């Protein structure tokens, strides 16, 4: 078999194999059971909780969880604004990079707080090391926030009927210390051995073959890159992200980063099954997500490997695949695979330029973010998927002649209302954002790299990426303007917190309801049939509403190329 394809299969299989035991471990961490790292972190946490006078034994209901979540996120945002705007005169700035403009700082901090990392700056020139460190901190805590929110959902379905859903700070701190930190640490060690720099010395100089002296940006890259993937953040240290040789030096580092971003989203699904003691349900969820993922990934690998036939027709050798915007050390198939991994999961790190993907590959990348729940970001992927489960439960519940139930809880008008608002939000933000950008060329036309269908795709991609909290870009778009900074900033806030609050609210409401024991007439949600139903709902709700917009973008581009 082609070694490049084999490499992809190894990456994917390894991720699944690692995710299964990791899921078990995560379930243990959240259930408060004994784990290996307790002796290290328990004393540290105790001191921390005493200083901040947090009692992690006190249970919160879903509303208290959400207030805690929003409060700490607000604090991080304010500190971040302060640091980025004044970093020019703060310590740890060996390259003397200036402070950020308010709109860029707003966009940057928001996008790191919401686990999106839509980077409208280049790390080399835009940030001091202190700024980079704050952003690295945000990559941990934003991932921790998403995971803690997912655990509230876990808790809601473990007990028969309860409003006590554990303590937010407990979940949050455990996510960071017991899960994100150790996994990132292991990956950082591997990356250092592969040649990723870890230094505070500022720019290095090197002499090229022609004898010129070139300044090369370095920094504490090896500390930054692992959490970018493990926390499905995607914010690169350098502007070109994981296409940069320091961030992603080799095919092996590429595999490590790929596995690094897949394992926690996958493991969270298995953890859910362990935690609520319904492993079959988590297998159903995993299967639906995997089918969806493969339906996007396989065509992309194929299209990128085959390259553009119009170029071959001109007599140019195309045997390496669609190599525009790709790194030769990584190759077309691995880049095609990465392009879907990074978009289905809300990582948004790139190892090749998506702007240069084949037209329909670009469509699949867009679709991956529009659906945003095939694995999805750490914690939040499961929350997004939960919304589709609720909708599928409702329709299929009616189809079997019973008031719909999920895990023994009746799904009624209030839950449907919330689920529908959340399902509606994503198309609303993406389509309205893109429509405004298209209707107001005075603000946007200058920043587009391409006119016509591809230009529309660039705008569509930017809002889709923002709304999916993904952070990747069709990098043809010159996005550091007031228009893009402010408009995507608001999209980011709405699309992060509402899709967390919505599912958690539904879970909280369901948790308080009476538990109905399962009978022969009860719809089972852990079956292949229900999985198919959920898949159909995802395709119709998330896929079809974007069909007209996609037709004017990548689909029109595809047909016009022929």
């Amino acid at each position, binding site marked *: 078999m082609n070694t490049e394809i084999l490499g992809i299969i190894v990456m994917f299989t390894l991720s699944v194999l690692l995710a299964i035991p990791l899921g078990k471990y995560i379930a243990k961490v959240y259930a408060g059971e004994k784990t290996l790292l307790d002796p290290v972190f328990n004393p540290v946490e105790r001191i921390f909780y005493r200083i901040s006078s947090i009692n992690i034994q006190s249970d919160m209901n879903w509303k208290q969880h959400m207030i805690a979540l929003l409060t700490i996120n607000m604090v991080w945002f304010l500190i971040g604004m302060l640091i980025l705007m004044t970093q020019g005169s703060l310590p740890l700035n060996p390259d003397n990079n200036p402070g950020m403009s308010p709109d860029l700082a707003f966009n940057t901090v928001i996008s790191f707080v919401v686990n999106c990392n839509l980077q409208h700056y280049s790390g080399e020139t835009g940030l001091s090391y202190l700024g980079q460190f704050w952003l690295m901190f945000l990559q941990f805590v934003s991932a921790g926030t998403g995971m803690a929110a997912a655990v509230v959902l876990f808790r809601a379905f473990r007990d028969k009927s309860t409003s006590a859903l554990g303590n937010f700070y407990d979940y949050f701190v455990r996510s960071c210390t017991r899960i994100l930190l150790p996994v990132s640490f292991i990956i950082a060690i591997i990356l250092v051995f592969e040649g990723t720099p870890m230094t505070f010395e500022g720019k290095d100089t090197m002499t090229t073959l022609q004898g010129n002296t070139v300044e090369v940006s370095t920094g504490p890259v090896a500390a930054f890159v692992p959490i970018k993937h493990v926390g499905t953040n995607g914010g690169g240290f350098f502007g070109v992200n994981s296409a940069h040789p320091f961030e992603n030096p080799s095919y092996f580092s590429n595999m490590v980063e790929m596995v690094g971003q897949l394992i926690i989203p996958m493991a969270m699904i298995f953890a859910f099954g362990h935690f609520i003691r319904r492993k079959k349900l988590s297998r159903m969820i995993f299967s639906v997500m995997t089918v969806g993922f493969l339906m996007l990934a396989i065509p992309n690998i194929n299209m990128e490997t085959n390259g553009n036939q119009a170029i071959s027709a001109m007599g140019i050798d195309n045997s390496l695949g669609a190599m525009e915007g790709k790194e030769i050390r990584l190759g077309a198939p691995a880049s095609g695979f990465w392009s879907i991994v990074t978009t289905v999961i809300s990582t948004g790190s790139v190892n090749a330029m998506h702007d240069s993907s084949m037209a329909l590959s670009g469509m699949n990348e867009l679709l991956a973010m529009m659906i945003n729940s095939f694995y999805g970001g750490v914690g939040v992927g499961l929350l997004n998927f939960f919304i589709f489960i609720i909708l599928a439960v409702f329709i299929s519940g009616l189809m079997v002649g019973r008031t719909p139930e999920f895990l023994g809880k009746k799904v009624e008008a209030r839950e449907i209302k919330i689920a529908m608002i959340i399902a509606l939000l994503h198309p609303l933000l993406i389509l309205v954002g*893109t429509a405004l950008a298209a209707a107001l060329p005075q603000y946007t036309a200058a920043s587009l790299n391409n006119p016509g269908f591809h230009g*529309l795709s660039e705008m569509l991609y930017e809002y889709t990426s923002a709304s999916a909290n993904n952070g990747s870009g069709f990098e043809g778009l010159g996005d550091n303007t007031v228009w893009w900074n402010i408009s995507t900033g608001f999209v980011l806030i709405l699309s992060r917190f509402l899709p967390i609050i919505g599912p958690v609210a539904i879970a909280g409401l369901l948790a308080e309801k009476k538990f109905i024991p399962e009978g022969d007439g009860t719809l089972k949600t852990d*079956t292949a049939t229900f999985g198919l*139903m959920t898949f159909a709902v995802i395709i119709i709700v998330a896929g079809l509403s974007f069909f007209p917009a996609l037709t004017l973008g990548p*689909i029109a581009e595809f047909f016009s190329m022929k």
Partner: protein
Amino acid sequence: MSTHNSLFQKKMVQEALRESFVKLNPKVMFRNPVMFTVEIGTAIMLIVSFWTLFGGQNQGSFAYNFTVFVLLLLTLLFANFAEAIAEARGKAQADSLRKTREETPAKLQNGTTISSSKLKKGDVFICEPGDVIPSDGEIIEGLATIDESAITGESAPVIRESGGDKSSVTGGTKVLSDRIVVQVTTNQGESFLDKMIALVEGASRQKTPNEIALTILLAGFTLVFIIVTITLKPLADYTNIPITIAAFIALFVCLIPTTIGGLLSAIGIAGMDRALRANVITKSGKAVETAGDIDVLLLDKTGTITIGNRKATKFHPADGIDETQLIRAAVLSSMSDETPEGKSIIELSEVNPLSYDLKNPQFIKFTAETRSSGINFEGTRIRKGATDAIKNMVMNAGNAFPKEVETVVKVISENGGTPLVVAENEKVLGVIELQDIIKTGIRERFERLRKMGIKTVMVTGDNPLTAKYIAEKAGVDDFIAEAKPEDKMNYIKREQAEGRLVAMMGDGTNDAPALAQADVGVAMNSGTQAAKEAGNMVDLDNDPTKLIEVVEIGKQLLMTRGTLTTFSIANDVAKYFAIIPALFITAIPALQGLNIMDLHSPESAILSAVIFNAIIIPLLIPLALKGVSYKPIGASALLRRNLFIFGLGGIVAPFAGIKLIDLIVSIFF
């Protein structure tokens, strides 16, 4: 009672057609968000049509725009027609019941006669043989045989008497014998039937919880497609593609779930109508819906599981007693016993009781204290009764209670029978065995319920041994033996505390609290007013197995909504492939590749999609009214089946339908 087998009767259709136009009133339309947006689209198309007529440019021909307008108007009318025909059918059904209570004279106690319409709640009237009862009421004095065939279709007369659990009479039924004094229980126009007619007619129709949730879901889908359609305008402008208003509105109307939106209220009304056809009056639409969710069914043993009464099946003489001696005693003690059990003893003996020549017989009636009955004559005292009652009597007199009789009694109980011990002059003669006769076919019905996921519970006054035997024989899942009214109540509360929904049927005043507590309480029409007030349904047939039908009607109601929603949403796939290429193909000819149905022209494609969208509504009206048939094959199998028919069918059908329509439309556009 008349039945309407045909779905569309001429008179009803005319009435419904007229209503379809009346319902176009935006104020009425507003209740249904999906169809309301279609109405707005229709209004816009009317304006666009006239604008093109008077020289408007770039919007296509007047004929094309006007056709779109007419098609949208038809879509609205079809949806209204669905609702109107469902209402008309429900009303016709209710009217045929109401006809039985037309103006009849009511004889008041003071001798005057007034019209039944003048009767008020609390009035008291008298009925004598041959009289038609003028109003619903409760017998406060007397006993009568009544012909209820006008309501139930059952020709055998029934007995109604004051004081007991069968004290209600229904207006329109006929007294055959004896004289009764009846108190009016409801004012004119406030009876359950009147309330139900109001429900069907829409005046007081409230959306049920599932209907509300579904309406939210559909409104959500509508909003999504409002966003999709409106944002398409700037995107198309950006890529320099002109799109006509007709195309935008066609895209929108085809994408929103008009099929289920148009049929939703018809489905709900039809559910109540089906209940009414089963001779069940529901007090709210919610009750029918809840019936579909029932987990536990409480059924009285007598009349539901067993044929009315126990029958004597065997005489067991004690050791040393001749069988004829036992039979003689048994017959004598039952001579004056008018209960069906007593009669069955004489039947079994094949002896004419009058053949025993008795002097001065003195009959001892059954009382709750003695728990025995019998006869005294010429110094002979014969008693028959419950084992422990006779045992006490015998032991008090200093006699022994034979061991072998004790064994016989135990064996009878274990086999589901009821033993009656017979004693003469405080000496045990033997035992009469009474047995319950289980209805034929009841076991299969319980099996069907089990497959639906419903637990059946038998309620009986029998002792636990007998109850267990009958429960096993009939195939019920659980039983409440020696049941007192509060036992039923406690059982319901316990099941509800565990999250289950409970249905029960009852008739007595004793049952009223339990009927009120149950999620679905069906009161028999013959029952007391208290029971009827407490329940949320009234069964005119007084048929205890009716609950099973009610459950199926509830399930059908939910399934019909679910399957048509799936069908409606699945249709979007094909409609997209019809309309999207049509929108852009003139500007981007390369998009011909998306036109997988190979539709003739942009106009014909759009018209075909809109036509399909409109005619699918009337095509599905019969299904909406009759309901999707329920099969108890387990939830997962049912989902697979319905997903296959309505999901896959919903994707495939419009591809074929739209292509077919396009072949015809392409002749004109």
